[in-house]
């Protein structure tokens, strides 16, 4: 028993110190929020004719896209006629631009025979930088939700989709615009419906606006003119589902006012009209229905085959997706609801909004407060306060390490509110010692020896602390998983401080007090205002 207590005590201290040393060695520190440290700011300019309401919608969409992509607690607002995005904890301009390039309008275009397009690939430069992880299968089929019969349609063979160009295979990638470019220059996306520059001589194209568009896997498709935009989909309704055979599918709801546009296109494709011809032969030899290309910024994200002529309310896209690909397609469909196109213009560094001194002042004030608390506890609990000092030190190191680790992994910034929250958490942490020691005091006063009182007191204290802290942890979990923005950041730090409290209470305070109670250390020393008699 005694050996186990020593083991727990020493292992805890060593583990916490090792975690702290690891964080310091890798200079891993919690990211500080915009109010404490500033960050980078990106100005997004909307296209002409955007109304104020459009901009507010874009603001919300940009923020939720940023949160989805892991940039926590951005500050997004409409200022004048632009959207200003402040990003905490981002140092690299490229990274800032990449993280805000979340807009872009999704076009829905019919896939046509490649003879309709010019022989050359339209101008998409091949020397652009890589936007990470944007690889998506271009194959897939569309079915109406709840119609399982259509799900067995085999995925389209890649080669049958359209024109494949060996040269183009390697390097069609979407990119963030060059931040050093002239801020007034337009983004590199292809304007909607622009005719290709070089028209092929044979055979004569009959569909105006048809052009080659690169696909994500490096191929290319010949797509007809844009017939609808991502606005036909309900905002934020796209989600990934796991089918019963382990295949992923993406389903998205149609907006009431967008259903006609979508169905208009779907009917053309299903009926294999000239505007959306069959692009291949099915396994049973019949002509396969046409495909709808889902295009974002001139890149085909997916080109599923349409299996039903009329969709009612929602659309499900099935195919040989990996989960990552399905997630990306779902993101694309969600972002398709941007009412206007916005273009990143310029990055600026932003200074701390709360004034540079605030953090220093909060830390100094917090430390002085902590010192006063410890002085009070020493005056009150005398020698037992040693345990509190040790425990709070371990707690503080554990909180710092956990905060550094979590904010490195999730990008959650520590704002001034978070710092004050941690200062409040000192009180809650000290409470576990107070509850424990007050209980011991009662037991000793009633005639128990310290050695006898300590484990009994711990058992009842542990129950109390556990119940009370569990409420905080439940709160942290629920707020973290369901809310956004700074409320989420609050939940994170509430969870960290509470977990550390429980951890230290069980693995440090318990062995420390029990060992002291067993040893001769306390004999004859004053604690709780009582002489501790020899046992």
């Amino acid at each position, binding site marked *: 028993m005694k050996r186990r207590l020593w083991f727990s005590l020493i292992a805890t201290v060593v583990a916490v110190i090792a975690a702290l040393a690891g964080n310091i060695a890798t200079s891993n520190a919690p990211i500080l929020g915009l*109010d404490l440290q500033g960050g980078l700011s990106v100005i997004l300019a909307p296209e002409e004719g955007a109304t104020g309401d459009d901009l*507010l919608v874009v603001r919300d969409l940009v*923020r939720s896209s940023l949160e989805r992509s892991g940039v926590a607690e951005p500050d997004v*607002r409409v*200022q*004048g006629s632009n959207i200003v995005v402040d990003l905490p904890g981002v140092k690299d301009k490229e990274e800032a631009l990449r993280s805000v390039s979340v807009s872009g309008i999704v076009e829905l275009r019919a896939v046509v025979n490649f003879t309709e397009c010019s022989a050359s690939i339209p101008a998409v430069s091949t020397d652009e930088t890589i936007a990470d992880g944007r690889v998506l299968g271009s194959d897939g089929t569309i079915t109406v939700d709840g119609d399982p019969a259509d799900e067995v349609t085999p995925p389209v063979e890649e080669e049958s989709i359209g024109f494949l160009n060996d040269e183009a295979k390697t390097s069609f990638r979407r990119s963030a615009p060059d931040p050093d470019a002239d801020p007034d220059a337009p983004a590199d996306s292809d304007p909607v419906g622009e005719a290709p520059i070089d028209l092929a001589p044979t055979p004569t194209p009959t569909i105006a606006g048809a052009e080659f568009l690169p696909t994500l896997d490096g191929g290319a498709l010949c797509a007809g003119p844009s017939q609808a935009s991502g606005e036909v989909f309900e905002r934020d309704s796209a989600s990934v589902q796991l089918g019963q055979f382990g295949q992923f599918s993406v389903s998205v709801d149609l907006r009431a006012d967008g259903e006609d546009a979508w169905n208009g296109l779907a009917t053309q494709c299903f009926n294999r009209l000239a505007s959306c011809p069959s692009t291949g032969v099915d396994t049973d030899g019949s002509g396969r229905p046409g495909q709808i290309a889902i295009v974002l910024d001139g890149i085909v994200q997916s080109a599923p085959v349409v299996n039903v002529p009329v969709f009612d309310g929602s659309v499900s896209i099935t195919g040989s997706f990996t989960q990552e690909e399905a997630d990306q397609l779902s993101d694309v469909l969600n972002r398709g609801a941007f009412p206007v196109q916005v273009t990143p213009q*310029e990055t600026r*560094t*932003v*200074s701390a*909004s*709360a*004034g540079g*001194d*605030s953090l*220093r*002042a*909060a830390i*100094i*004030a*917090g430390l*002085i*407060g902590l010192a006063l*608390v410890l002085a*009070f*506890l020493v005056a009150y609990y005398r020698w037992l306060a040693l345990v509190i000092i040790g425990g709070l030190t371990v707690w503080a190191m554990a909180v710092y390490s956990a905060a550094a680790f979590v904010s490195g992994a999730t990008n959650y910034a520590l704002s*001034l*509110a978070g710092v*004050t929250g941690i*200062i*409040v958490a000192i*009180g*809650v942490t*000290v*409470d576990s010692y*107070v509850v424990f020691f*007050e209980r011991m005091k*009662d*037991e000793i*006063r*009633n*005639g128990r020896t310290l050695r006898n009182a300590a484990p*009994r007191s711990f058992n*009842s204290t542990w*129950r*109390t602390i556990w*119940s*009370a*802290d569990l*409420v905080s942890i*439940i709160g942290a979990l629920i*707020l973290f998983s*369901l*809310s*956004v923005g*700074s*409320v989420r950041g*609050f939940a994170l730090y*509430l969870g960290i401080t509470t977990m550390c409290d429980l951890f230290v209470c069980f693995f440090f305070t318990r062995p420390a007090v029990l060992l002291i109670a067993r040893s001769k250390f306390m004999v004859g020393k004053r604690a709780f205002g*009582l002489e501790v008699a020899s046992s």
Partner: protein
Amino acid sequence: MSRGNQIASSGLGRLFRGQTAVDFYGRRRIGFVIAIVVLLATVGSLFTRGLDLGLDFEGGDAWDIPASEIFGVDEAKAVLEDNGVSTNGARIQRRSSDTTDLITVQIEEVPQDNAVQITNAFAEAAGVETDDVNFSFTSSTWGGEITDKAVRALIIFLIVVSIFISIRFEWRMALAALAAMAHDVLVVVGAYSLFGFEVTPGTVIAFLTILGYSLYDTIVVFDRVRENEGKYAGVRMPYEDIVNISMNQVLMRSINTSISSIIPVISLLLIGSGLLGAVTLREFGLALLIGMISGIYSSIFVATPLLAGLKSNVGRKARRERLTGDNLRAAVIGSGVTGRVGATVGSADGESNAKGASHDDDVKTAAVLEPAGRLLTHPPRPRKKKRR
């Protein structure tokens, strides 16, 4: 035996030794009256004065002023103060890139005339033409979506916590804990409304912190009530007595914890915002201070009396008046040990803690008054009585 067994003569000494005998339940009406007054004041103030929502909620005005050697964040702050605009809710930042270097000032919306005046003042202070100072409106950053999601998350949290407390303790405790929490949040919201403090996203975080603190504190107190309930299960103790005993037992803990929690916050207020001049800390500090005091107060004077009120009509009617004075004191001291208070008379060797044990002749009361000695000498387990 140590002197801890004697009843201290001074009130402070009794507090220190856990020998207090305050009749909290008897004074519950004071707590309720104060709670109702606070509630009315808050609701009244919310209707008449409302809350001053800050820049992040309502948007405001923004200026972009070219930064230079003579014009920086501090100068911008000075210009605002000269024009009678509070810099408390203002956000002044330096925004710079390779080609531009600007001071961006955002404040809550001011009338058009003032805005023009401030624009001119900025231009003058920065030594540039008025046209070089860019004035625009800025929207809120805290979209309705954030509020919606936070409120939804909060409601789900409260439901889950109620279920948790109902399972771990009982539903009346859940109700009382939520009432105390609502009381605390209302106190703080009321203070914000009355004093006209600006509500920022940080304030929302402070509200949430208080909410969590209040629940935590109440549960710690309720845990003791629950424990004593079990302890007195054999002796048909009136619930008011259990509540009173528990309150007195946790009193020292509540005071110690309050001191330990409040000292850092006061330090934040006095040293952080006072001496070091970090104004942003002031409102946080104030909100937290009010909320924590209210949280400690409410768990003793709102939650527990409410619980006793809810419970008093439940179960069998107690046969005697509730304990007060020295009888209560004896019970407080006596049940401060782990174990169970039996229904049999105490053994002869237990030295009497109960100075005023002459209260009534009920055998069970005597058992209440001297439990510690018996518990520690391990009396035979009392036979379970048949329920009547």
